[in-house]
């Protein structure tokens, strides 16, 4: 019987990584999933630091992170990084990408067709102009039903989970290629290629040239494909899933909103930052509700009860000098570069340890860049460290119980 249990609170990118890492390190893992967060809004580009600030960075993923990323079976990390076109009109660098996105880095000097179709925010001609000379608009039929003109990206993408529909699309694209006046080496599409899994590889096989999506708006199918990949990977790793919202975390114990309490040797907290919902910004306006609040408080709070303090820029927050709240313009982008609102979180050690048997991962960490790979690799570190601690604790406990009962056979 093992008591080396690690509870991971939060099933986003960081929580998933922590669960997989702890499981791989030999712990029994419970993943507490309180619903969707920032990970579902991810656009599919993998970065450690924002790409425009990443010049000269090595495009390399540490081996332990790469191994767990591979177990998700949904992401691609090419040697030397990737180049991804976005619907905002740029071709941006990335360390890696979600499987449905088209990496144009290997296509240097080739012609990439941009499919003309009536989807919101998708103007093939404008995008081709913005992305560069290698891109040409291509007339092709993507929409099969009238409602698809206005359907949300994820709904549209879900239709291509149907193999028949995907073949229909492949046929339309093959047809378009045969009618295209000149050679086309790859095809870039709006967000459309599946929700259950990325259908880009399958489409590529059927069409004969690389096909993939451009990065679109947050809330597209890429985040949903992450969720499906997570579900498969977590299940394969034998992690126990609990669908509940954690409301209180103490060392070794997590209480959830369904009245249950879970015990563990170590806890990894990966509930997200301001965007994911792990941290809440309480505005001065709502603080001003009926009267001034009874005590001065920091405008940021953790949304679950945890014995941890929030901070930013390497320091925990101090008592604010105003009962009415701190002026938001002193906290937030774009008034402040490196804004507190962006940096707020729990200050933790390099392995995520913030208190005894309590580890932090993902956007809940203070001062961490709010990127996908940062969240994932911090989850890997925290999950591994939590598992180590849990295993050590359970070993010493069984040793102690062994010493206390010498008469045991």
């Amino acid at each position, binding site marked *: 019987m093992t008591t080396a249990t690690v509870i991971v609170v939060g099933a986003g990118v960081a929580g998933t990584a922590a669960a997989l890492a702890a499981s791989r390190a030999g712990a029994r893992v419970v993943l507490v999933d309180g619903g969707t967060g920032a990970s579902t809004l991810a656009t599919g580009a993998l970065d450690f630091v924002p790409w425009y600030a990443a010049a000269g960075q090595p495009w390399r993923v540490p081996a332990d992170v790469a191994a767990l990323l591979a177990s998700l079976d949904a992401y691609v990390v090419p040697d030397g990084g990737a180049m991804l076109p976005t619907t905002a*009109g740029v071709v941006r660098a990335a360390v890696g990408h979600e499987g449905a996105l088209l990496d144009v880095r290997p296509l240097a000097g080739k012609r990439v067709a941009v499919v003309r179709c009536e989807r919101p925010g998708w103007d093939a001609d404008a995008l081709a102009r913005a992305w560069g000379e290698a891109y040409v608009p291509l007339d092709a039929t993507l929409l099969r039903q009238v409602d698809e003109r206005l359907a949300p990206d994820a709904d549209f993408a879900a239709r291509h989970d149907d193999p028949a529909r995907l073949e229909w699309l492949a046929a339309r694209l093959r047809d378009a290629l045969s009618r295209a006046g000149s050679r086309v080496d790859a095809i870039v599409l709006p967000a459309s290629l599946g929700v259950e899994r990325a259908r880009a590889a399958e489409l590529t096989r059927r069409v004969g040239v690389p096909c993939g999506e451009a990065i679109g708006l947050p809330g597209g199918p890429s985040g949903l494909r992450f969720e499906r990949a997570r579900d498969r990977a977590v299940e394969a790793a034998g992690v126990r899933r609990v669908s509940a919202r954690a409301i209180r975390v103490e060392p070794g114990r997590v209480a959830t909103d369904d009245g249950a309490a879970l015990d563990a040797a170590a806890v990894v907290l990966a509930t997200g930052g301001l965007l994911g919902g792990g941290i809440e910004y309480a505005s001065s306006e709502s603080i001003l509700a009926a009267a001034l609040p009874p005590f001065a408080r920091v405008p940021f709070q953790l949304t679950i009860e945890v014995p941890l303090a929030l901070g930013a820029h390497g320091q925990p927050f101090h008592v604010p000098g105003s009962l009415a709240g701190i002026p938001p313009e002193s906290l*937030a982008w774009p008034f402040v570069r490196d804004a507190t609102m962006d940096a707020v979180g729990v200050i933790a050690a390099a392995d995520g340890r913030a208190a005894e048997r309590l580890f932090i991962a993902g956007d809940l960490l203070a001062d961490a860049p709010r990127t996908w790979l940062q969240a994932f690799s911090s989850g890997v570190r925290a999950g591994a460290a939590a598992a180590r601690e849990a295993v050590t604790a359970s070993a010493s406990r069984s040793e102690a119980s062994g010493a206390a009962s010498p008469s045991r056979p």
Partner: protein
Amino acid sequence: MPEEPVSSSLRPPPASMPVADEPPPADEVDVAVIGGGVNGTGVARDLALRGATVALFERNDLAFGASGNSSGMIHGGVRYLLSSPSVTESSCRDSGYIQRIAPHLLFRMPFLMPVRKAPQARLMFELIDAYFRAYDDYQPLKRGEPHCRLDASDLARLEPGIVGSLVGGISFDEWGIDGARLCVLNALDAIEHGGRVHVHTDVDSIARAPDGEGPRYVVSARDRFTGARVRVRAHVVVNATGAWSPITASLGGLPQTRVRIRPGKGIHVVLDRRIGNYGVISEAIDRRQIFVYPWQNVSIVGTTDDDYYGDLDDVRATSEEVRYLVQGVASVFPSVREARAIGTYAGVRPTIYAYGPNEDALSREHAIVDHAPDGAPGVYSMIGGKLASYRIFAQELSDLVAGRELQISVPCSTHTRCLPGGEHVPDALELAAKHALTPVAARRLVFRHGSRALRVLERVARRPVEREVTCPCEPVIEAEVRHVVREEMARTVDDVARRTRLGLGACGGMRCAARCGQILAHELDLVPAEGRRMAREFLERQARTRVVGLGPEQARQEALTLAHVRASLGEP
């Protein structure tokens, strides 16, 4: 030793208008109007309709200042009822005229004024009731409903969100308008009657022409984007630059003291949706009257009035001002605290100067300054005024200029001739069905463009892909974005936002700014990177206006916007 009076040594030398040192341009107009707010565009339209040739210069965009940042009302001047009933009467009559010339752009705004229980509140209630009974006499002039006297239970039924122990209240009727569109329509009509309008064109000098031949003045300006110089010769120069008036006067060497204003900053907080069907009047902590009201598809809390001596090109609300307004309105209408503030806007009123009175006690009336005593006959400054009385003010100035300076005897026709698109209001649902638009998109399009919506939709008929929704919050279709770039002088994402309300909804432009930048770059033949730069600038400017009213939901939206900008657009 006799003491030198201190003031005389400090008094500046008498100003005088310089003589142009370059040869005067061949380009001649009757009137050069400086300022693209409602006064400037109103005068340009009025004079153009009378047959005068007009050139208008605007340093930023049309409606960039007070006109585009007002409460968005054409009110009947109820506050002047006791002091000068004739002002109320002319305001109400003019409200009727504006409804006639731009029927698509106006919407009814019923207000509730609760009266709280307090010593002598009953008497107060009677007085308010009597006051609005007198106002009722003028309501028919503007198709307004008479006021209603309501008891506390009536009020609770009409607007359950009102709290506190109340004696009762009254309702009264006003009209709302989109001030930015009003300016654009006036400018368009001026253009369609032979005028010229230069936006983003900064006047840098007003000088006397060196020769006696032809018009007296030379106005020089520079396009702020291209750097191109624009110079015209004009018989008459009208300074209609609102809070910028003293600066403009100084460009012609005119004494700034003659066009003194008391710049009054006013801010508004924008909430994400219509939180009620009525405007609700309430009192701030200092007993100033403030209000929350549904406006277009949002609610607005307004307004402050504070002396302002900062940069007029960069006026912003502060979080203190937001708190002041929210706290005041919440005392009557507490749900405003839970509402999500999606932005703020700020403008500077060009109030007529007076030393001493509190900001609220200053007159919103207008005055025309004739600069003949300053040695510049034919130069006029328009001081003060308000959105609701823009047409009368423009008429007064145009009467003066047409009669005295241009010997034009054509009478004013701005109250009878429709603004562009006002000729008839097409049926939005029919258009929606015909062009496969959503009914909401069609309705908003007709609201902004009236019959010109048909021109926008001609584009859709030619290129169906342009029915694509660019801004889902408002909503705005692509054809409209292209239309305002081609026909309404929009040159940046901000300009498009001012004309269409693109990007001013709950997502703050996250979903549309980049796309709008792409369209602009295409229409204006710019490199795509220029479109992205405009999009980033717009997003950043909007974030600045939002952040001061930040609440929990909006904070998450800010984090999402930032994440999106990081992922796909590049460094904010």
